[in-house]
């Protein structure tokens, strides 16, 4: 290629345009996380370079390019402070691709851009788990490969359709090999090294504070919080409380978490049946794991229970996670509440919500027993005109006073907050628990979907001799909501129309089926790990799988795929494998070649036969007849199966003698001639 005309390695406008298209498609998936100025720079570089190329100009001079490149990279570094991590790395690569485009002159520059496109595709997949993204990016890489094919083609640029087909063929042949590698390549549990967490992804779902109205926003979201598969029977509907953050500190308006150390003692005695289940969490950027009520067993080595009986782990949940947990819904506390915790859980902000304090004192005087007092407060909510709404009026600093005495309209958070305040005012330790309640059963795949709209808040009060007891004050106001979920109780609310809450519509069925597929994708593909590899090996009949056996299976698989691939490619070597006549003729030529008479590439059947007759008179007649027959069969007007069979059989029977033997004495020749 070096001595070829400069035009052969020079980049043409069409090539530039196509690589720009591929780059744009790859950048599209990063667009949301890239700085705007960076996108603008890349687009400007592409437009400038394309415009120059369309007019036949070369790239802008080196000095200008260098200045632009240095400035852009510097700005990017000042903005990100690092080039490590997926987000920063992708940003840098995108910038480099744009700048490279600006200076593209030879094919090699385009090769570099193609490689960047491949890597950008990978970077997008590192952070995503979407099937559609994978499909899209495989499409992009296919297009890039087709473009590459056209770039490297030096004789005649083949048509788009042809390049695309060939790139598709190679991609398709790559799939089995990739599958074997993917299935058996060793997986590691943790990262090889820590990368800066990409903190751009927003927290979703419950946070560790609760102000009036917080959960209302969540109730409108259809996003999935987690999915649960029960091994065995699920708990009754009234007991499906998924505990999340437990809130202690109250400033009169907002509830907050407080320091909760690792739980040191068991502390709880189960008094009811246990449940085993797998919870598949969506990333929520917090460190807690939603579990059913009181968890007592799980399969995550770094997770632990804290003193609030929350299952937490050291790292934030930034990727989906599957955990097997066992829980009880009925427990009894074995130990008394420590004095420090008691003091913390009866503390109320001084000078706030005075009317509430007064109400609590009055009520507690009338019902000195703690359990009676709880029942009296719930009765208050039930008897007085409290309303349950998704559009509660805004509340001020004395939120509990305003809610209890003025507005009387609220969502679960309002009731939980007011109830806890009333308990604390009476000297009963109480805390607010946020989490999820209920869930939707997916009858297509036997699991429950718990979505953000299932977010809920309730209370736990300490009853001497019994321990923490769950009280859901919301159930006192709108029992239907607790029994049938949000859609039933809020059917009147015009803003609320979650499709899968309407149990009999085809739309909800479709959504459930789609969700079942999504869950399958997640379990089988995304969560594929060493354990899955072991299971796969066992299902292949290999007992006690370990790393070595997996590697051996991978080796065997690769060998098989390579054999298949070689066979695939070998098959194309043969000329038109379907035609028996052609095959037989090939065989004839091979036999003659073995006898020292190889057909020259430019020789047709008849001229070859003529040469054979000249060089080896003993074979002349036979070969002549066969070759004439071949020409007639091959180029004749119609197919004649009988003649074809005759030809094939004759070729099979044909046995030329080696040249050395045939060139023996005259007597020898005389003896062979009559045959």
């Amino acid at each position, binding site marked *: 290629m070096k001595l070829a005309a400069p035009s052969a390695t020079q980049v043409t406008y069409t090539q530039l345009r196509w690589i720009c298209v591929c780059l744009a498609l790859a950048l599209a998936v990063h667009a949301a996380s890239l700085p705007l100025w960076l996108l603008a720079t890349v687009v400007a570089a592409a437009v400038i370079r394309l415009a120059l190329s369309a007019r036949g100009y070369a790239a802008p001079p080196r000095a200008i390019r260098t200045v632009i490149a240095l400035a852009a990279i510097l700005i990017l570094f000042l903005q990100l402070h690092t080039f490590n991590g997926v987000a920063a790395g992708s940003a840098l690569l995108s910038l480099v691709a744009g700048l490279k485009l600006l200076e593209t002159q030879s094919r090699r520059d385009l090769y570099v851009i193609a490689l960047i496109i*491949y890597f950008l595709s990978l970077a997008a997949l590192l*952070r995503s788990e979407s099937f559609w993204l994978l499909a899209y990016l495989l499409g992009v890489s296919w297009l890039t490969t087709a473009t590459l094919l056209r770039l490297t083609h030096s*004789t005649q640029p083949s048509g788009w359709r042809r390049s695309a087909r060939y790139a598709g063929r190679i991609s398709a042949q790559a799939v089995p*090999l990739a599958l074997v590698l*993917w299935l058996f390549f060793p997986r590691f*549990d943790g*990262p090889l090294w820590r990368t800066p967490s990409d903190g751009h992804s927003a927290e979703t779902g419950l946070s560790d504070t609760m102000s009036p109205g917080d959960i209302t926003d969540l109730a409108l979201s259809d996003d999935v919080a987690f999915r649960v598969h029960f091994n065995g029977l699920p708990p009754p509907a009234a007991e499906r409380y998924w505990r999340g953050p437990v809130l202690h500190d109250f400033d009169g308006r907002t509830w907050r978490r407080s320091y909760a150390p690792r739980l040191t003692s068991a502390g709880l005695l189960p008094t009811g049946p246990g449940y085993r289940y797998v919870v598949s969490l969506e990333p929520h950027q917090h460190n807690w794991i939603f579990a059913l009520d009181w968890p007592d067993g799980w399969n995550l080595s770094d997770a632990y229970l804290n003193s609030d009986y929350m299952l937490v782990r050291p790292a934030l949940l930034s990727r989906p996670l599957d955990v097997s947990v066992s829980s009880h819904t009925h427990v009894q506390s074995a130990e008394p509440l420590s004095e420090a915790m008691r003091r913390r859980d009866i503390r109320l902000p001084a000078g706030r919500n005075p009317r509430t304090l007064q109400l609590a004192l009055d009520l507690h005087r009338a019902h000195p027993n703690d359990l009676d007092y709880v029942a009296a407060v719930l009765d208050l909510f039930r008897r007085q005109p409290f309303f349950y709404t998704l559009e509660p009026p805004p509340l001020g600093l004395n939120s509990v006073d305003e809610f209890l005495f003025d507005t009387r309209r609220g969502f679960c958070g309002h009731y939980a907050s007011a109830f806890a305040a009333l308990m604390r005012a009476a000297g009963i330790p109480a805390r607010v628990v946020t989490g999820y309640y209920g869930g939707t059963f997916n009858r297509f795949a036997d699991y429950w979907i718990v979505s953000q709209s299932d977010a809920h808040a309730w209370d736990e009060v300490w009853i001497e001799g019994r321990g923490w007891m769950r009280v859901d004050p919301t159930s006192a106001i709108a029992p239907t909501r607790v029994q049938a979920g949000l859609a039933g109780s809020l059917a009147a609310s015009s803003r609320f129309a979650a499709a899968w809450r309407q149990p009999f519509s085809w739309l909800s069925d479709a959504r459930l089926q789609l969700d079942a597929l999504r869950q399958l994708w997640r379990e089988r593909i995304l969560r594929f790990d060493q354990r899955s590899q072991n299971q796969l090996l066992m299902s292949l009949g290999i007992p006690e799988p370990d790393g070595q056996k997996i590697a051996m299976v991978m080796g065997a698989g690769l060998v098989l795929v390579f054999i298949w691939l070689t066979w695939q*490619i070998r098959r194309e070597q043969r000329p038109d*494998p379907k035609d028996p006549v052609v095959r037989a003729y090939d065989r004839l030529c091979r036999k003659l070649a073995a006898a020292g008479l190889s057909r020259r590439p430019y020789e047709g059947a008849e001229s070859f036969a003529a040469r054979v007759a000249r060089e080896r008179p003993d074979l002349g007649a036979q070969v002549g007849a066969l070759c004439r027959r071949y020409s007639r069969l091959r180029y004749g007007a119609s197919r004649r199966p009988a003649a074809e069979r005759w030809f094939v059989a004759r070729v099979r029977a044909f046995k030329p003698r080696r040249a050395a033997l045939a060139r023996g004495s005259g007597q020898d020749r005389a003896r062979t001639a009559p045959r």
Partner: protein
Amino acid sequence: MRNLPEAAVARIRAWSARRHGADELPVKIERRRIYILPTRFGLMLVALLIAMLVAGLNYNSNLGLAFAFFMMSMMLVSMHHCHRNLLGLTVDVKLEVDAFAGADAVFYFMLRNESAVDRCDVEVRLGTRDDSPQGIIEATRSVATGSYEEAMLAVPVANRGVRRWSQFELRTTYPFAWFRAWTYVHSPLTAFVAPSPRGARPLPIATAAAGEAARSESRGDEDFAGLRSYAPGIPLKHMAWKTLARGGEAAVRVYSDPGTRPEWLEWSALEGLDTEARLAQLCRWIAECESGHPRPYGLRLPGTEIPPGRGPAHRSRCLRALACHGMSQP
């Protein structure tokens, strides 16, 4: 190989020559003789693939790993395709060609593809970087399924003499330029470089015509002057049947009637010129004899004598004699 130093390439070539021995044309490229290595672009891709794998493992991303493995497999499959692009191709070339100093020696390579797939961007290369200032000459062809292509390599030759190449090379980087497959065909190519035809002296016959004619006519009886190879169009009555019957090539008798008496182009007739100028003059005479009058001509060089004759084969023989004159090897 652009990636490898010339010394390494020379060693590979020598090893390959030892391994395969001399080739008899036409050569069908088989599996054993195809070598394949990644190109520089391919090495860049390898680095990228390693980075992809590490990233996929580090982020514990099954989708990232899937993509990384897919790209790896693409590379491996493309290696097969690159190898396949040469496999089974048949190549033939006329091994000996004539040329004039200062012009090109032209080799015609015939690439034939009998398989069911197209062969794209097959490069025929001749020479090495050390060979000459011109270095490597190459031509790239695509051969469609079931057809053939001719690749013409024109090697500029500056000086008279015999130039040899002990092998030529076929190579390809198709499909993605990630790999380069190549093969050496160890058939020696020879260019006989005749001197560039120059010189102002007239043909010797013009000077010697008178005396020669007189002597020849006085002999009268024997006008048979020699044999030359048969060319279509010569009357059959001039065929040398006896020669043919003895198993020799078809030849015709040449009679030395005044119009066709042989012209002897003699080295010794060019006193006073240096070697190259003499050869240049002889070369010009050969050209004049071939294009001008229908007289057979012979060539006498010190140590070599070519009997009179005419036609392309004879001309080629004479030119080769000029090319080889004074060279250590014929």
